[in-house]
């Protein structure tokens, strides 16, 4: 009896996870009449094998990268620079929420310095006036977070360092 119950629960969970990613024909972006839908990869096929996240598009992209589940090419041109930076920057030092520890490493595993500097963020520590309002309107961190990286509902992922314990 108990095993039946577990079976039913597991079945529900697996159905829920299979239904997590909307098929292209029903995503309301693709035209269901497009002949491409017979050829394009379905999100569920690609994403269901990757480490799970509880937010965004349900994929933990950093774990996927660090665990080698995906190996995205870093460059097309052999001469293109790959610049990794390891340091963390502490932000929001005078705000009310926990301090933001910004990890350069996880960002430079995907992005080039020039994607953020100098037009979005100045390279000088303290020279950027960050604002949650601006971020929520798609400026600053909000250029990516909420669109292609974990959404702004996940406050504690950025506001992750208690005050007084720097």
């Amino acid at each position, binding site marked *: 009896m108990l095993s039946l119950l577990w079976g039913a629960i597991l079945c529900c969970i697996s159905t829920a996870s299979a239904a997590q990613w909307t098929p292209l024909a029903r995503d309301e972006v693709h035209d269901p009449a497009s002949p491409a839908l017979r050829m394009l990869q379905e999100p569920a096929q690609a994403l269901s094998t990757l480490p799970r996240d509880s937010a965004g598009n349900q994929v933990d992209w950093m774990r996927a990268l660090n665990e080698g589940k995906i190996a995205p090419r870093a460059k*097309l041109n052999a001469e293109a620079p790959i610049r990794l930076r390891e340091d963390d920057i502490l932000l929001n030092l005078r705000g009310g929420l926990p301090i933001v520890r910004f990890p350069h490493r996880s960002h430079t595993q*995907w992005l080039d310095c020039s994607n953020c500097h100098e037009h979005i963020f100045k390279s000088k520590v303290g020279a950027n006036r960050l604002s*949650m*309002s601006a971020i929520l309107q798609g400026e600053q961190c909000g250029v990516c977070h*909420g669109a292609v990286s974990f959404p702004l*509902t996940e406050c504690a992922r950025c506001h992750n360092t208690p005050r007084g314990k720097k």
Partner: protein
Amino acid sequence: MNARRLAACAALAAALAAPGSPRAEYADVLINKRSDAAGVRPVVFPHWFHRIRFQCRVCHNELGFKMRAGSNDVLMADIADGKFCGMCHNDEIAWGAENCDLCHSGKPGLPSRIYGGHQTSGPGRW
């Protein structure tokens, strides 16, 4: 300070509610600058598909795509010349530009922006 916090909360609430967002993988860019007028389906660019295969820097640094939907004016002639999408969509790395339907697969009439359930009002701004 309180007013600013209130504004941030209101913006967050609006972002969470996201009324009318089509259910799609977040960060699908729909590009319909000229498609409707030209009588072809608009282009769907799925970020999730591309990031499995390429790091952000490849398109947003090497290929020169600015990180704001709508700020890149890409013409088919550019693609045929090997610029922008054409750096890969050349029948060598990925399907070539003669496979019109594979990129031009969006719903006709949809406005250009980023689609998906987790966007704020900002990144998808045109």
